[in-house]
């Protein structure tokens, strides 16, 4: 039995005393040894890895190891690991209709989730547009957000909008100094003069 034990080192079976004599116990033991199919897949056969015979399990295993891309249709465009900067850029792209009040955009896809497969690139102008359609080295930024922040044409509008939002959300100030309409304390004081 020790051989058997050693042979089947990884198998653990609870030693249950036979209820009905020796006979029964011998039968059970026989049954246990008889069933090799029930052994798990991770079992190393002669110390070697054997891939699971079940195709489902195999596919799962394969998928785990595969690189996440958009597929061959789009030339295996990889999924980018989303950094905070990239996340900001994607948000800006989604909210680009509020950047410039003069511009209007078609409704894009209204999926709230950010795109999974995408790449962030830089536009390369052709030689003919060297002067007309090119950003200078100073103007070039690493992210879309930086670009927008340094756009002078949109600065005034942006500032104004930010100011408004800040004022609307600003909780500060003494409450009784705020002008809340006709019957405020401040006005009453002015009236008293």
């Amino acid at each position: 039995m020790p051989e058997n034990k050693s042979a089947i080192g990884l198998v653990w079976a609870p030693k249950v005393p036979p209820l009905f004599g020796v006979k029964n116990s011998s039968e059970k033991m026989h049954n246990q040894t008889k069933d090799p199919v029930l052994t798990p897949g991770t079992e190393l056969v002669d110390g070697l890895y054997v891939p699971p015979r079940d195709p489902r399990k195999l596919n799962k295993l394969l998928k785990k190891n595969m690189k996440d891309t958009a597929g061959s249709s789009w030339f295996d465009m990889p999924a980018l690991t989303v950094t905070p900067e990239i996340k900001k850029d994607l948000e800006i792209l989604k909210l680009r209709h509020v950047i410039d009040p003069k511009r209007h955009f078609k409704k894009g896809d209204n999926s709230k989730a950010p795109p999974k497969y995408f790449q962030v690139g830089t536009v390369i102008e052709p030689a003919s547009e060297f002067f007309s359609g090119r950003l200078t080295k100073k103007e070039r930024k690493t992210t879309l957000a930086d670009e927008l922040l340094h756009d002078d044409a949109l600065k005034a509008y942006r500032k104004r909008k930010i100011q408004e939002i800040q004022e609307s959300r600003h909780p500060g100030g003494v409450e009784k100094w705020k002008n809340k309409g006709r019957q405020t304390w401040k006005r009453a004081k002015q009236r008293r003069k």
Partner: protein
Amino acid sequence: MGKGTKRQRKAVRSSAKNHSTNDAFREDDIDDEIDAFHKQRDVVPLDVNGESEDEDLMEPVFDFEGIDEDDSDNSRSDDDGEESDGVNDNIKDKGFAAKIARQAKYLRQKFGGDDDEMDDHEEEEEEERKAIWGRRKSLYYNADNVDYELQSSDEDLPMEEEAEVLKIQREKAKTLSMEDFGLENNEQDESDSDRQNDMHQDALVGKTAMGRRSAVDDDNSYQNYEEIKKDFTDLSKEEQMDVVYSSAPELVGLLAELNDALDQVQEVKSIVHKVGETTETGRVGMHFLEVKQGLLLTYCQSISFYLLLKSEGHPVRDHPVIARLVEIKNLLEKMKQIDVNFHPQLEDTAINSLKNVLTRGNVSFEVKPVTTGQQPNPIKDFEKGKSSQDAHKTSASQKKEDVKMGLQSLEMLKVRENLEAKLKKKGIYNLTKPKTERVVNDVRKAVNGQLETLDDFDDEIKHTAVKNLESSQKLSQLVGTKANKSKIVSGDDDLPKRDDIGERRRRHELRVLARAGAVDDSDLMEDEDGGLGSRSMDVKDQDTDETGESEDEFYKEVKRQRVEKLRAKSEKYSGTLAVPSFVEAETDGKRQITYQMEKNRGLTRPRKKLTKNPRKKYRHKHQKQLIRRKGQVRDIRKPTGPYGGEATGINTSVSRSIRFKS
């Protein structure tokens, strides 16, 4: 010229007796008529006073009356002889006429428009009044639209009437002078107090008249006034004269004229008798003489009527008798002018006949002054003496004459009565009626004379005074038209009429109030004004009228006004009540038409403004389609510069191609 000298002479003589009046008489020559009359007024009281004390004080009056007597003599001598006194008479007559004219003027001035009836100006006024009132009632009431007139509501009529009456009374008030008011006040007071006082007044007037007459001639009118003489002694002379002059300053002159006229009538009558008896040659002048006699008689009658009125204490100022007097005076003037022409013709016949029939000394005396009429003073003196002498001698004959005269005057009064009745029937003269009736009553001494109708007198008059009828009728007609004015003035008779107006006005106002529900403040004010006006009218009337009725009226008026005022006040302060009533009053009139009515579009469907015009409608349609087309077929966009991407973005999820079914 003649009158000037005469006056001077008079003045000189009076100065010899009375030093106080001396200066006045001197100034009289220089001054105008008004002053002259005022001075006369000054003189007369002295005259009256001196009458009993001093015979000489009578002289100026006698002097004055002497001329009158001369005149009457002349007129009679015209009848009888007209030998010598013709020219002188004329001269005297001129003086006398001037005097009368002056007096008339004075009267006019004194009594304002009421005595101005003879005046041209007055006539013009009369014309104006006629223009206002119209000549005939039918012009106004029986016009083409008679039916309409009848149907038309009489709401406005009282208003118009009232306005008209107010206007007339205002005019009247203008014409009245202070003296009138004073005079009337005296009488008014008398009438106000009681009958005793009235009697006393009458007595006073009678007294004064008596005084005058006794001064002029002792016997003539003595009997007439004998019974009143009791009161005469009650008052002192000054008081009596004061009363006389305050009430009727023209009385003195009229008395004198009456005397003259009486004398003349007697003379003319005698001459006419004699001439008629003796010769038929004097037929030419006979008619003239008869006319003259008639005139004189009328004159006497009217004067006596005037005196009667005075004695009864009636207001004479606005009475037509004064106009009548002046008119007759004028006619007498004319007669005298004719006398001048008649004189040479009549001289022979009349004198001859007179010579034959010289029974009475009076006549001979009268002829003399006619012949030697250029110096009136000696004649007057003589006549004075004569009259004083004759007073005893021919007292019996005089009495007979007086009786005759009384009958004649009665007849004349009847004639007048008749005429006035006729005029009254015409509707012009109605207001003088009661007075004349009263006069008649007095004359006849009939207590129930008021009940007699005027037609009763007609028969009596017709055969008695046919001769005088012609002239007098004319005169009365003339006067009567002018007397139209007096209808408004005379006191008692228009009182009921005014009551009527008041009544009507009240009724009208009540009606107006009932209709409108509420009267505006302005209206009320107007009413009050009207009330005040009527009150003032009433006050005026009170002067002239008996106060009993008018006072009642006045109180009623005041009460009514007060009630109205209270009502107006309550309406004003209740407020809530006043407003709806006002609204009702507003809605009472024509309602405004609505906008729908004004447009009168019938059943037309409402159109939008943009699609009303077809051209515009199509234009708008086209524009709309162009916009829709933009969605279907997008415009061609030309590439500008190097391609920098789609500005509006690319929606990758959109697929909008046209699918073919198969």
